[in-house]
């Protein structure tokens, strides 16, 4: 009897496990040879001849890599070196986030990936001619993450000129950001260092370190070779002293002397590095100076990597899908203005944006990652805080092709009427259709103003007759827009959305980066998400639970009394 029960249970578990695994598995792909794999899976982007000119390439930026020049961004090898086979295998396996280069981990077997590595190497003769295997970067001196290290890295970030491209705090908004092009002359936006999930080569500290030491060959990002480090050949203390002296308006005689000595040491080390680069044999003493200098450079690069790591959240935020909806929090008082500390107490909801490729003209290469949203409401009003990163502050530029005015903008979309029930029709997610949507349209050229629109289609939007119901504040700092909008929950205007606590309201976004050519339908967008004025938690929660606990105590005592009485009766 007992055995039978156990057997029954075991069968149930067995069924459960088999059922779940049958879903999780994928059959391995049949193995084909390199050329075949390449022509099937890669040629439409990278071109049959490996020139990066496949049929899909026209619409893409960054462009698919041209394999004929042997320039690879993601390597474990030093500046100017070719990648190792393992590097190529890994990048094919993992893909390049933030670009259209997909991961092939599930679509191609490991065997096929090795075959295709061998094949793409045939496009560049340098691989055949290379006599020695490429020199790999030594990772052994890793400096552990610490506040101290981050501080040191931060100073280097300015000293090395990262700021000019990547901006003050890394949002890719440096002054030269809009003008960068890669080896092939294509626009090349500096990475937004606060979004590690879009790094081509991964955002582990080791990955970032390798990118500095080895450079991203072919890109606009320079390689930071040893002697480009300020104070090359000096110890950390010496180099900060050198900078300190440089920054003085007036030096004493002793300080002049000290500075001259430091420069002498620096120049000597740079000379040695140049000689080495030209192939000159170094004396033992020179080699020693060079090795010491490089040790300092490596250490500094680890600090820099730690600093970059400190700029980004640990992982990409979860999108506001499912139950993770945008909840506006109730407060009794006046709603906080844009720069109020109260906003810091809320956790933002993350709405990732994708290129609008549903309606012509399309945006295939978005530059805005996401919009983050927070919200408070009180008895009469609701306030939203929108933030999004944009490398450039564009208010009035002319598109060369179309002559249209380009500028940065954001639109927040609601239905005019909230659909009643889960199956009720919503307006079309892209600015409505048969059913209209209600929009807040903000533009960088009029930063204190939001226009209310009613739209029945992406090309069919109209400014409402009644404006001025919205209170607006906005700023652009360090590559990030912040927009604050406040409105009454209920308005007189029939074309406005009316808000009520506890009602789930569809919400969607569009954004434009003028510097990326975004205008009209060419933009980034989301599909429908959900927003709710979170009701104040019911006070029932303080009544029923204690009541139930009390009842259970009563029940237990009652049961005991019952059993006792019965026992005594039996006796």
């Amino acid at each position, binding site marked *: *009897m007992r055995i039978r*029960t156990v057997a029954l*249970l075991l069968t*149930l*578990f067995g069924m*459960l*496990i088999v059922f*779940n695994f049958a879903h999780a598995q994928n059959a391995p792909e049949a193995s084909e040879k390199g050329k075949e794999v390449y022509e099937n*899976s890669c040629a*439409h982007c990278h071109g049959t001849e490996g020139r990066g000119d*496949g*049929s*899909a390439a*026209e*619409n893409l930026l960054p462009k698919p890599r041209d394999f004929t020049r042997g320039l690879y961004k993601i390597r474990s090898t030093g500046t100017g070196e070719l990648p190792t086979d393992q590097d190529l295998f890994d990048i094919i396996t993992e893909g390049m986030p933030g670009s*259209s280069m*997909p991961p092939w981990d*599930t*679509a191609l077997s490991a065997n096929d990936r090795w075959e295709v590595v061998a094949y793409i190497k045939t496009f560049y003769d340098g691989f055949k001619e290379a006599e020695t295997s490429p020199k790999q970067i030594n990772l052994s001196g890793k400096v552990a993450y610490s506040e101290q290290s981050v501080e040191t890295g931060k100073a280097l970030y300015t000293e090395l000129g990262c700021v000019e491209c990547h901006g003050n705090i890394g949002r890719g908004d440096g002054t030269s950001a809009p003008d960068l092009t890669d080896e092939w002359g294509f626009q090349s936006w500096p990475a937004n260092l606060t979004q590690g999930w879009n790094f081509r080569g991964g955002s582990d500290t080791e990955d970032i370190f390798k990118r500095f030491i080895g450079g991203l060959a072919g890109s606009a990002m320079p390689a930071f070779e040893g002697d480009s480090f300020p104070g090359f050949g000096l110890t950390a203390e010496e180099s900060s002293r050198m900078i300190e002296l440089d920054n003085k308006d007036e030096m004493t005689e002793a300080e002049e002397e000290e500075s001259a000595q430091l420069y002498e040491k620096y120049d000597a080390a740079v000379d040695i590095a140049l000689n080495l680069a030209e192939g000159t044999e170094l004396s033992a003493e020179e080699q020693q100076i060079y090795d010491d200098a490089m040790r300092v450079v490596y250490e500094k690069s680890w600090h820099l990597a730690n600093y970059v790591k400190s700029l980004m959240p640990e992982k990409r935020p979860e*999108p506001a*899908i499912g*139950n993770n*909806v945008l*909840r506006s929090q109730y407060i009794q008082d006046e709603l906080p203005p844009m720069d109020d500390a109260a906003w810091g107490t809320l956790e933002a909801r993350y709405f*990732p944006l*994708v*290129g609008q*490729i*549903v*309606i*012509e003209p399309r945006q*295939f290469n978005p530059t805005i990652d996401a919009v983050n949203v927070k919200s408070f409401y009180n008895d009469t009003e609701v306030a939203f805080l929108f933030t999004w990163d944009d490398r450039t502050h564009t208010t009035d530029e002319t598109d060369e092709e179309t002559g249209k005015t380009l500028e940065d903008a954001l639109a927040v979309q609601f239905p005019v009427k909230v659909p009643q*029930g*889960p*199956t009720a*029709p*919503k*307006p*079309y*997610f892209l600015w409505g*259709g048969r059913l209209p949507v209600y929009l807040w349209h903000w533009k960088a050229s009029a930063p204190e103003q939001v226009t209310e629109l009613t739209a029945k289609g992406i090309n069919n939007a109209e400014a409402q007759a009644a404006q001025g119901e919205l209170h607006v504040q906005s700023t652009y700092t360090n590559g990030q827009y912040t927009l604050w909008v406040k409105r009454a929950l209920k308005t007189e205007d029939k074309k406005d959305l009316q808000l009520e606590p506890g009602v*789930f309201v569809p919400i969607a976004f569009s954004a434009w980066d003028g510097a990326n050519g975004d205008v009209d339908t060419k933009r980034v967008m989301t*599909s429908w998400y*959900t927003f*709710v004025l979170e*009701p104040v938690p019911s006070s*029932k*929660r303080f009544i029923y*639970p*204690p009541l*139930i*606990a*009390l009842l*259970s*105590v009563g029940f*237990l*005592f009652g049961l*005991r009394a019952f*059993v*006792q009485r019965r026992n005594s009766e039996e006796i």
Partner: protein
Amino acid sequence: MKKLSLFTICLIILVGSWVFLRFVVGGIISVPIPGSVIAMYMGLIIIAILVHISVEDSLFQEFRRPILETLVEDKRRNHRRVLVVLIPLLLLGYTYSIIAQRANPPGSPRDAHPSPPLELTYKDEVIGTMQDVVNPFRHYEKDDPEAFSAHVENGKRVYHQNCFYCHGDHLDGQGHFAPYLQPLPANFQDPGIIPNFQESFFFWRIAKGGPGLPAAGTPWDSAMPIWENTLTQDEIWDVILFLSHYTGYQFRTFGEAH
């Protein structure tokens, strides 16, 4: 060692199964099981236990003995004290967590494959009835392999200039724009898709896109574009050839069971 009482064994089985389902299968083997499925399995196990103990009177007596003992006997006084505090506390916590839970948005039910219209059209031009229209280039597969390849190749170009952003390089619905669209783009590598539909159905879906769906398919949510505005009829038929050629799945032909 003291022999475990029947009640303890049942308790161990019950708690053990829950831990196994929730943490071993769901955590270590990492096949997360939805709460409702766990509840179903736990229900089955409780029924199995009840059946087991109620088969013979002696088993039932044995099962309830420790319960009765704990309720009244002096030697169990300490157990009793602990339980009279623990049980109400657990109930308190549980009811609080249920009442204080935030309301979540209702899921929107969606029929991913609602019935198509009877007539297949391109823009406003009628092509034929949904049942009868076939891919005009399909016959090349047998008649003229070279022409067939050219059409597949053209379909591949169309796909990689227009579709892979959403449907993925591998046609698996995992394009680089895909993860943030709701509903997700279709996965053509799913064996339940291509073999279940005629090519005319795909022509309809591609030509009319998300907005062309009937209400059951929630046309307002789908990011699937209307391709008749951008692609020619031939291009649509070619991309359909490419979809089945690349995945290796055959479209259903009229007359086969749905």
